[in-house]
C-alpha cells in the first residue's frame, strides 16, 4: 500500500464503553487494511481502558473538547503520519464497518474530496426513515435546506458522522475553528470549491450510550447551525478573496 492510499479511521469517543469494543472489532474485521485511532474526548467511563486493551492507538484528550475538536485532533495525527485518506466513524455502533471501503472507493470513483455516508440521498433509504420521530425529520430537512441556501448545493444528510476525505481536504479543516463539523463544514468546503459526494448507507439505531443532542439542544441546535452557516459563508468568502488576491 502506498503512502498516498494509506487510510486512517478516526473514531471520536465520549463515554462509549458499551459500544466501543464492538465498533473496534467490526472495523478491524471489515477494514483490515485501514489503520485506526480512537480519540477519547475526556470520557469518564471505561472507554480509554477498553481501547488500550484492544491495542488500538488512543489519543486521550485530558478534558472534553467536543465532537469537532476531537475530530480535529485525529486529523492532526493523520496529517503528521502522512495518511492519504481519512475516515470519520462514530463510536456508537450505528455505522456498518463494511461501508468504510465503499466510502473510500467512492472518493476515487467520483473524484470527490469528501464522501458522506448518507442516510437520505437514496429515495429507498429516505422511505425507510419515515418511522423516525417527526421532529428529527423536520430537523434533517431544515439543515438540508439551509445548507442548500448557503452553498447552492443540496446535501441530503448534513449530520452524518460517517465521512471519508482526502488529506488535502483534511488539511483545510484544521485552519478553521469548527464547532459542529456537520453543516458548517460542508458549506465551507463547497464554497471553497471542494467536491462532495453522498454515498447511500443504512445506519442502525443507537442501542446504548447517550446521544450528544440533549432536549435543550433540540431547540438551540437549529439556531446555532444557522449562525454557524453564516460564519462559514463569511469565512469561506474571505478565504476565497485572499486566495484570488494572492
Amino acid at each position: 500500500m502506498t503512502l498516498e492510499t494509506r487510510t486512517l479511521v478516526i473514531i471520536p469517543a465520549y463515554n462509549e464503553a458499551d459500544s466501543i469494543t464492538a465498533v473496534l472489532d467490526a472495523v478491524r474485521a471489515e477494514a483490515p487494511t485501514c489503520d485506526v485511532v480512537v480519540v477519547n474526548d475526556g470520557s469518564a467511563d471505561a472507554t480509554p481502558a477498553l481501547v488500550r486493551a484492544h491495542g488500538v492507538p488512543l489519543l486521550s484528550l485530558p478534558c472534553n473538547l467536543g465532537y469537532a475538536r476531537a475530530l480535529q485532533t485525529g486529523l492532526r495525527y493523520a496529517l503528521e503520519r502522512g495518511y492519504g485518506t481519512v475516515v470519520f466513524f462514530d463510536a456508537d455502533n450505528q455505522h456498518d464497518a463494511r461501508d468504510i471501503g465503499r466510502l473510500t472507493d467512492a472518493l476515487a470513483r467520483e473524484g470527490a474530496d469528501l464522501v458522506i455516508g448518507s442516510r437520505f440521498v437514496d429515495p429507498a433509504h429516505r422511505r425507510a426513515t419515515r418511522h423516525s420521530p417527526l421532529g428529527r425529520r423536520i430537523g434533517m430537512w431544515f439543515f438540508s435546506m439551509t445548507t442548500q441556501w448557503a452553498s447552492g448545493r443540496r446535501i441530503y444528510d448534513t449530520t452524518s458522522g460517517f465521512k471519508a476525505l482526502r488529506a488535502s481536504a483534511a488539511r483545510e479543516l484544521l485552519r478553521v475553528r469548527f464547532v459542529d463539523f456537520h453543516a458548517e463544514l460542508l458549506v465551507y468546503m463547497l464554497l471553497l470549491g471542494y467536491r462532495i459526494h453522498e454515498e447511500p448507507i443504512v445506519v442502525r439505531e443507537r442501542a446504548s450510550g447517550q446521544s450528544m443532542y440533549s432536549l435543550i439542544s433540540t431547540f438551540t441546535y437549529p439556531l446555532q447551525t444557522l449562525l454557524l452557516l453564516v460564519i462559514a459563508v463569511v469565512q469561506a468568502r474571505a478565504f476565497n478573496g485572499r486566495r484570488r488576491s494572492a
Partner: protein
Amino acid sequence: MTVQGVIVFDLVIAALLVYVLYLLARNRMYVGYGVIWLAGLIGAAVLVTIEPVQALFTRAIGAVFPASALAMAAFGFIILLLIYFSVQVTVLADRVTQLSQHIALQELRREQEAASAPPRDPAPPAP
C-alpha cells in the same frame, strides 16, 4: 443627586477600588482586568461627583435626567465588560484546546516510541 447620595456613591466606589487593588496585590486578578475595573470605577466616580461633567455627559447622550444618563453609562459598561470577558473566555478555551490536543498527540507518540524501542540490556551487577 443629593450631597448625601454623592458621598455614599463615592464611599462605595472607594471600597470597590480598595478591593480591586487588594485582589491585584494578592495576584488574584489579572492586571489587564484590574486596569479595566479601576478605569471604570474612577470614571463612575468622576461622573457622579463632578456636576459639570455629569451635565455634559447627560446632554451628550441625549438624556433628560442625569440619573438616566448614569444608568445608561453603567449598563453600557457592564455589557462591554461581558463581551470582553466572552472574548477572553474564548481565547482561553482555544488555548486549552491546543494544549489538550498537544498533550494527547505527545502522549501517543511517547507510548508508540516506547513500544517500538528495543529492550534495554539489563544493568551489569554491582561489583
